[in-house]
Every structure is written in structure tokens, then in C-alpha cells.
């Protein structure tokens, strides 16, 4: 932090924040008493499965939604009563959506927003051209928005998000739906922008563990509207380091990882993220196991043998943020069906997921 940013109030201050969606047959609590403080200059992550309340929190902080209870402020400005001030110093970019005025060119669309952000006409064109070069869309500047690929559209959205040189940038699943290389480009872009000026703050929501691990200086793990843990990635990982973390591969696993999770000495068992689509009926099933100590492995092997499962591989792993999440929540991101129900209900009034999870 610089001397200038040290004098600033917290970039984000949230106290007792609750948000209830008044849907039928019963209201859905998306945020349930959140307390959070993010310092100027931090790259802060909200990590959690779909329906955890991440997007609801970002909507409140970006003044799109009012809280049901509690207080939230951005650089000291209250989200409920000083929205106009907040809007001048922040910006937001959401992923997984096809937003944009398709009939305008990339340059036209961004210029329009530069005017809404108070730049002069000429200054706006100059800023737009600079940013288009910076995000690698210089060659597409005169292309209609409707002709852009998903990755290009997200780069354009990133350029829009940086038009006003925000003090704080809210990124809501910015790499959702992007291919590996486009997602990497977006991450690099965000890191470069943030690194260029000390004090710039980023709040990122994601359910990609690796993304949070790579980008964030501090992370809050959220589920069912509550913050379960908060800390640096290494602090969070140390929570499970005292236990044995193993990756187990078997040819089949009838009953799924829950069968293992019930065994004595097993802290948690969850399908590994890299084989979630294979399911438990596949020929090779990988499970992340957290054991209280190595002695619990004997019971696991015995149970697998009794169930007719053949062990194809077993190795210890470094704990990941997913292990932390599994220990905190008792399930992995792959087993998030229950959590999604919360968001499904919430979408009756705030249909975020129609954009973010169109496959549902």
C-alpha cells in the first residue's frame, strides 16, 4: 500500500449482512449474516459452489441489490444510501453471459460506456482504443459485437470494466464458459491491471479452486450464505495439513464417496474434480480422501475390498482449496446438488443462474 491508499477506508466493509429472497413457498436466505473486511489493494476471492451466495454478495456490493439486513460499504460509501458515489469508483464484469449491444461495433459500445463514466468524447475514444490494444482486441475494434467469440466478448467486457479506472473491480465468475487459453488471458489481464497501480482492489467470485488459488491474496470460503473460513490460500490449506490427504483411484465405487466418508478415521471423501463427469459407475474413479491419520487407511482398503472395488492407484497429495472446502462443508464442489437448490429458488426473483448456468 502507498501512503495515499493507507489513508483510505476499507475497500469493502460488511457487517451482519443478510439477504433473503421473498420467494414462494418459503423465503430463501442467500446471505446469512456475513462479516467481511477487504483492505485497499487486496485481491480478494469468494470461493464457493453455485448457490453459496457469492453473486448475491457481489450484487449488493455493486449496488444492484439492497440487503435485507446489515451494512455494507465500499471505500466508506454505504451501498444503500451512497450508491451514486460507489458507481463512480467501481466497475464490474460478470462471466458466462452473452451481454452486449450486438449491432454496435466493439469500439462504439465501449465509447458509449466511457461517456456514462464521465470521460470526454475524445478522451473516451482514446481510452477505448488504448484498452482495446491492451486486452488484445485491437483488430476487432470495428467488428460488430454480435460477431465476437465468447472469449473476445469477455475481453471486451473486461475493457468496459476498466474504462473508468476503478478503485475496485468486481469480477463475478469472469472465466466461466471460457476455454483454457481465453481464461488464462483474462486472468493475466486482471493481474496486470491490478499490479500496475498499488491500491487497486479486486473482488473475485469463482468456483474454480485453481483460479482462486492462483489469483487471490486472501480467500473467503462461502456456503449456504455463510463465510466458513477466511485467510490466505496457504493459511486455509494448513487447516487440513495436519491430516493425511490422499488421492485414491479405484475401478468402481458403488454408493459413491459417501460410503468411504462414513468409515472411522475418514474426515471427508469427495470425487476428484477431474473425474466428476465420469461418475461412480466408470472404469476409473478418483476420490480425494482426508484421513485423520494414516491408520484409517486400513479400514478404507478393507471396505473397498469388501465392496469389490479394485485399487488402481493411491498417492498422497498436497492439500488443495477443495480439500479445505470438503473439510469445512463435508462435501466437494462436485457434490453440490443440494447447494444448487438454494440458488434455484433464488432465481425465481433474481435470475442470475439463467445466465451463468444455461445448461440447467
Amino acid at each position, binding site marked *: 500500500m502507498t501512503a495515499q491508499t493507507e489513508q483510505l477506508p476499507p475497500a469493502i466493509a460488511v457487517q451482519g449482512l443478510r439477504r433473503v429472497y421473498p420467494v414462494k413457498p418459503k423465503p430463501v436466505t442467500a446471505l446469512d449474516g456475513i462479516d467481511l473486511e477487504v483492505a485497499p489493494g487486496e485481491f480478494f476471492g469468494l470461493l464457493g459452489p453455485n448457490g453459496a451466495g457469492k453473486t448475491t454478495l457481489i450484487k449488493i456490493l455493486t449496488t444492484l441489490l439492497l440487503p435485507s439486513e446489515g451494512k455494507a460499504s465500499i471505500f466508506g460509501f454505504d451501498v444503500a444510501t451512497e450508491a451514486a458515489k460507489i458507481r463512480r469508483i467501481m466497475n464490474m464484469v460478470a462471466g458466462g453471459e452473452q451481454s452486449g449491444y450486438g449491432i454496435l461495433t466493439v469500439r462504439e459500445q465501449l465509447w458509449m460506456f466511457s461517456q456514462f463514466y464521465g470521460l470526454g468524447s475524445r478522451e473516451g475514444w482514446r481510452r477505448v482504443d488504448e484498452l482495446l490494444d491492451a486486452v488484445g482486441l485491437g483488430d476487432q475494434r470495428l467488428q460488430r459485437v454480435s460477431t465476437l467469440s465468447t472469449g473476445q466478448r469477455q475481453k471486451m467486457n473486461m475493457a468496459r470494466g476498466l474504462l473508468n479506472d476503478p478503485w475496485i473491480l468486481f469480477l463475478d465468475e469472469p472465466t466461466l464458459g471460457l476455454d483454457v487459453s481465453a481464461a488464462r488471458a483474462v486472468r493475466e489481464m486482471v493481474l496486470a491491471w491490478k499490479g*500496475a497501480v498499488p491500491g487497486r482492489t479486486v473482488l473475485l467470485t469463482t468456483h474454480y479452486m485453481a483460479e482462486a488459488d492462483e489469483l487471490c491474496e486472501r480467500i473467503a470460503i462461502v456456503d449456504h450464505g455463510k463465510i466458513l473460513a477466511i485467510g490466505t490460500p496457504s493459511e486455509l490449506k494448513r487447516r487440513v495439513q495436519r491430516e493425511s490427504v490422499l488421492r485414491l483411484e479405484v475401478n468402481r465405487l458403488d454408493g459413491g464417496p459417501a460410503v468411504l466418508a462414513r468409515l472411522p478415521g475418514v474426515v471427508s471423501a469427495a470425487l476428484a474434480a477431474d473425474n466428476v463427469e465420469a461418475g461412480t459407475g466408470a472404469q476409473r474413479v478418483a476420490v480425494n480422501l482426508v484421513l485423520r491419520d494414516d491408520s484409517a487407511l486400513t479400514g478404507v482398503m478393507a471396505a473397498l475390498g469388501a465392496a469389490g472395488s479394485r485399487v488402481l492407484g493411491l498417492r498422497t497429495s498436497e492439500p488443495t482449496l477443495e480439500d479445505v472446502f470438503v473439510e469445512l462443508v463435508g462435501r466437494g464442489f462436485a457434490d453440490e446438488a443440494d447447494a444448487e437448490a438454494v440458488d434455484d429458488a433464488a432465481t425465481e426473483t433474481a435470475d442470475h443462474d439463467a445466465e451463468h448456468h444455461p445448461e440447467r
Partner: protein
Amino acid sequence: MNAPAVVGHPAFDGNGFDPARAEGIGLADTRRHLWTAIRLGWQVESNWTDPLLFFIYTVAKPVASLLLLVFMVQIVGGTGASGEAVRTFVVLGSALWAMLIAGIAGPAWSVLDDRERYRMLKYLYVSPATFLLVLVGRGVSKLAVGAMGTVVALLFAVVVLGLRVDLAAVNWPMLVITLLLGLPPVLALGIGLAAVCLQTRQESWSYPEAFAGALFLVSGVVFPLSILPAPAQIVGLVNPVTWWVAGVRGAILPGGASSVGGAGSLWVTLTGTAIPDAVTTIVVLLLTGSVSTLSAIALFRVSERRARERGLLDRTTGS
């Protein structure tokens, strides 16, 4: 997609953390936001498809509507002096309606388009531009496109249908005053409708035209209010669109038939005068327009607050 060479790009150099930035720059901001919204609306309206389709919607549609009504009048009203008067009344009202419907439905369509189709409403909303101002700007641009339709329909009526407009006889001051006084309430009705559409779901797409269609009946556009039942005449008399149409019609065709007043009308019962004169028309337009405008702004404020409470600003309903 290749990763761009972003590290160290000068575009990422910032302007620091000057607290004054959170305050904005007042009137200059407001002017810029309004102008940008008008420009955005114009771009979206005029550029959304190819020139042929733009021509069809802007020119052919109002002319077709005009012809439909003219033929109906021709069949029902026949020819002769009274038939000519009725035809003139209908042609002028119908031409003006192209502009009115654009202004009334425009802001509501902007809400629906931006939220459901372009998915940009949330980005506009969280920008420093005042949301109401953005919608007014979008409405102005729709009104401008509608005005083109009105002008084209009027030219068509003069050249093809033989509508007689004596430019020397036109009451120009009355025309200018009425036009200017009428535009805010027309846009205000649009803002009121936008406030409603902010709260509703899929079915909203039909609301703007449904509302405009209902308004068509009680605004004296193609027939005088006197033929309506008394309750509907009351709605017509407190409706600023009625007075706008009556004022513009009276200015272009001085001494012609008026949509307000006439034998057996509520206006005659209430005032004892046959038809309102120019000054009365302007005064009532000003009064009904002011009430409509203030009511629409209040309604919009309530709706915006409720939308923010209920999370409706970025809701998409898949329609």
C-alpha cells in the same frame, strides 16, 4: 485466443485515488449521460437491422396504418364535405400516433431490450449515469424515429391522399408550443410504463403496445371523445395525449374538427363551451402534462427502489 501482451501496458496506468472522483461533476455529467443515451438509442434503433427493414418499420408501417384507417373511413363515411372532414381528422391523428406510440412505448421497450435481450441493463444501472435519465434518452431517440414516421405519413397524406394543409394558415406558435409542451408528458407516460415493466416478467413484451392501444381509444386520435361513454371521456380529458393531439391538430388545421368538445360531449357539459380554444388547450396540456410527468417520476422512483430490493434489475426470464 492468444494471451494479450498486457503487462505494463500504459492503458493500465491509473489516475490515483482522488476522493473528488466519487462526487461527479454535476450538470456536465447529466448532459453527457442524456446525450449518450439518446445516441445509444438511435444506434440501437437505426442500426439494428438492414436499411430495408429500418425503412419498413419507420416508413412503411405508419403509412400502412394510415391507409388502413383511410380506407375504413372511405367505406363507412363515404365522400363529400363531411367525409373529407372526417378523413382529414383521421389522417392527421393517425400520422401523429406513429410518433406518440414510439415515445410512450420506447422507454418500456428499452428496459425489456436491455435486460432480456442485450443483458446490459445491470451494467447501465451500475454506471454513474442516472438510470431515469438513460431511459429518457432512449425514449427521446425512439420518439425521434417515430417522428420520422409521422413526417413521412403526413407527406404521403398530402401528396398521395390529397390532404390539404395550408402552410400560411398553420398556427405556428401554437404548433411549436404544443409540440414542446407535449413531449415531456409523452415521455413521462413511457417512463411510467417502463416502471411497470421493471417489475414484470415474460408477458411484459406485450404491455407497451397494449397500453398504447388502450390510450389510442381515449386520446381522440381518430375519433372525438364525445362518442365515448362518460367515464371514458373523463379519462380522455385528464390524459395529456388528448390535449397534445388536439393542440397539434388545431394548429395544423385551424377551424377544423376538434377531438375535444362537440355536441353532447362531457366537455360541453362541464364548461359550457363548444370546443376548447387555443389558450385553453395549452393550459390544460400544461396542467395534465405536469401531473403526468411528476406522477411518472414518482412511480419510477418507487419501482426502481422495489426492483433493487427484489433483485429484478438483472433478471432475465428467457423470453
